[in-house]
Structures are given as structure tokens and as C-alpha cells.
């Protein structure tokens, strides 16, 4: 069998990739990262081997797009680094950005990424390590630390 129609890929993996983008980048920037991820994926799709792990492939692309965005953001944000994030008003489901995103945002980037790729995308640590670089053990530790910190900050209501 050859490749599925790309529409089926969007339907099957679109929601998970959006969760990953939201967890890594927050509600506002996630839309852009998702859009760039799927446009890029669609561009490359005809050359994808039909037996590829599509989810890991998409998370890898999403990871690169998110890193690009974070770099662009930090370049833009240099003089005004400490301004509080304004709550987004562009149609995100109410509330998640203020609590969960505040807790996620407080994590070191690597922890946020490992948590998103392992717990939200369901990638095994070997795949998470392949996306991020480093060893599967390091990915496992970062995810464990991230989840512990997240529980503390978010579940116990200490997030601001």
C-alpha cells in the first residue's frame, strides 16, 4: 500500500500536534507552529516512506518549528523580557492558558519539550531523545522532573 491521502494524516494527528504545540509554545504561538508544521509536512509527504512512524515524523517537524518560533520570540523580546503575558483572546478554550500554561511556561524548555513529546504525543523516550538529541535516559529524567514540577505548581494550585 502507498501513502494515505494527506487529509487523513491531518485528521489523525492534527489534534495531538496541536496539543504538543500548545504545551511547548502556549496558546498564542501554537497556531503558527501547527500551520508551519503541516505545510512543511505536506511539502515533504510524497517522499515519506509508507512504513514511517508518522507521529514521530510530525513531532520532529513541530519541534523544529517551535524552536524557530522560540528563537524569533526571544530576539523580539530582548528589551521587554519581564512583561507579563497578556491573556490571549483569539478563541482558545477559556482558562487553560492561565493555569496550565503558566505552570508549563515555568518549566525549563527541555522539560517542557520532553513532557509534551512523551506524555502528550506518546512517543517512547528513545524517540523523544532522537527528536531532542541526548540519551533516552536524559529524556526520561527531564520528563520525570518536568512532571513532578508541574504537579507541584499546577495541581496544588500554586501557579500564578
Amino acid at each position, binding site marked *: 500500500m502507498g501513502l494515505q491521502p494527506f487529509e487523513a494524516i491531518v485528521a489523525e494527528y492534527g*489534534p495531538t500536534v496541536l496539543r504538543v504545540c500548545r504545551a511547548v509554545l502556549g496558546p498564542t504561538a501554537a497556531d503558527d507552529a501547527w500551520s508551519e508544521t503541516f505545510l512543511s509536512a505536506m511539502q515533504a509527504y510524497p517522499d515519506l516512506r509508507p512504513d514511517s512512524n508518522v507521529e514521530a515524523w510530525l513531532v520532529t517537524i513541530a519541534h523544529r518549528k517551535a524552536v524557530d518560533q522560540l528563537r524569533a520570540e526571544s530576539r523580539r523580546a530582548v528589551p521587554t523580557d519581564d512583561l507579563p503575558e497578556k491573556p490571549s483572546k483569539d478563541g482558545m478554550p477559556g482558562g487553560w492558558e492561565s493555569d496550565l500554561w503558566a505552570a508549563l511556561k515555568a518549566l525549563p524548555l527541555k522539560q517542557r519539550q520532553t513532557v509534551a513529546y512523551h506524555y502528550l504525543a506518546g512517543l517512547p523516550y528513545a524517540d523523544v531523545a532522537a527528536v531532542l538529541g541526548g540519551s533516552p535516559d536524559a529524556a526520561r529524567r527531564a520528563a520525570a522532573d518536568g512532571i513532578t514540577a508541574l504537579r507541584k505548581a499546577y495541581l496544588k494550585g500554586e501557579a500564578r
Partner: protein
Amino acid sequence: MMTARTTRAGDGDLFAALPEVDEEAQRRLHARLVAAANHAGILDVAYRTIDTPVGTLLLAATEQGLVRVAYPREDHDMVLDQLANRVSPRVLRAPARLDMAAREIEEYFAGRRSLFDLPLDLQLSHGFRRTVLSHLPEIGYGKTASYAAIAAAVGNPKAVRAVGTACATNPLPVVVPCHRVVRSDGTVGRYVGGTDAKKALLTLEAAA
């Protein structure tokens, strides 16, 4: 609410605030992807469906033109898989490219259109079959021709059976009028959309 949150259930519950499926966002992002892919020239196959008196038809178009019309009995998912394999896997549900085709097909079923004026992409049909299909529009609206007559018209009077095959594998039924090709004994013969659909189209055209 608080008790549910503080329960140490699976780690998945941590992310309950981050919806697994956000349909409004998926719709918005899908539309944005369609626009970006179209703009980038990588929307190789756009498709939509349309409800008609002979069932829901699948319409698909490349940048060149309408490439496929499919009846429900052909199984739309299978047809999309075939398009992915035979044309390009860059396939998206993108109705805008098919607006004109959908409008003309609606007008046809309303009895207000006797001729389709659409760019067609015949890449799914080859050789003799394609030659046959290119002759079919010569059978005017409301008229019929026999398989034998079409075989003669394409210069191969013995190829009656092959004309039948060309009609049965027409990738663009309704628009390329294989339904106007009938048996010499006057019965309607077989049809990719089923005999009832063929009769319905011939009845529609006879009434107008």
C-alpha cells in the same frame, strides 16, 4: 473539581485542561492549511462531496481541472486512496477549487444545464479508453448512442466490448456522459453508478 484534580490518577489528567480535540481550532487550522498549500502550489488534489438525486458524489480536482467524480458505490475512501496513489498523496478536503464544478452539477440535476463547461484532467484514463471518453461529449444532451456506434465513431468497430470497459472505468461520470451510451437492443446497460442512476440521468435529460 478540586478533589478530582488533586487525585493522583494517571499523568494524563494533568493535561485535562488542554483538550485532546479542539474542533473549532482544527477547523480554523485546516482552512489555514488549505489556503497555504494552495498558495504554495502543493495542493495537488482538492476534493469535496455534493448531494445529488443519484447520491452523494465525490468531486476531486487537480490544478489542471476536474480529475474524478465518484458515486457512493465506488467507496469514497477507496477512491481517495486511489487518488493518493495514482495522482499525488497531497490530498486535502478543499471545497473552493470545486465551487464551479459543484455549481454546474447542481444546475444539471435541476434541469438547467445541458452542457458542462469545466476544465477536465483526464490523467486517470489512458490510451483507447481515453479516446473513447473524449468522443462521448459528442452525444448530445437527451440523446443516446449504442456501444457499437461509439466503437465505429472512434474508428474501431470491433471494439464494442472495449468501449463498454472505457465507460465502466470513466473517472468522470455525469460530466463525461458515459450514461448516454446504451445497448443496441435498447436496454440501458451497465453503469458505474448503478443501472438505477443511469436510468435517472436519462430520464432527467429526456424530460428537460
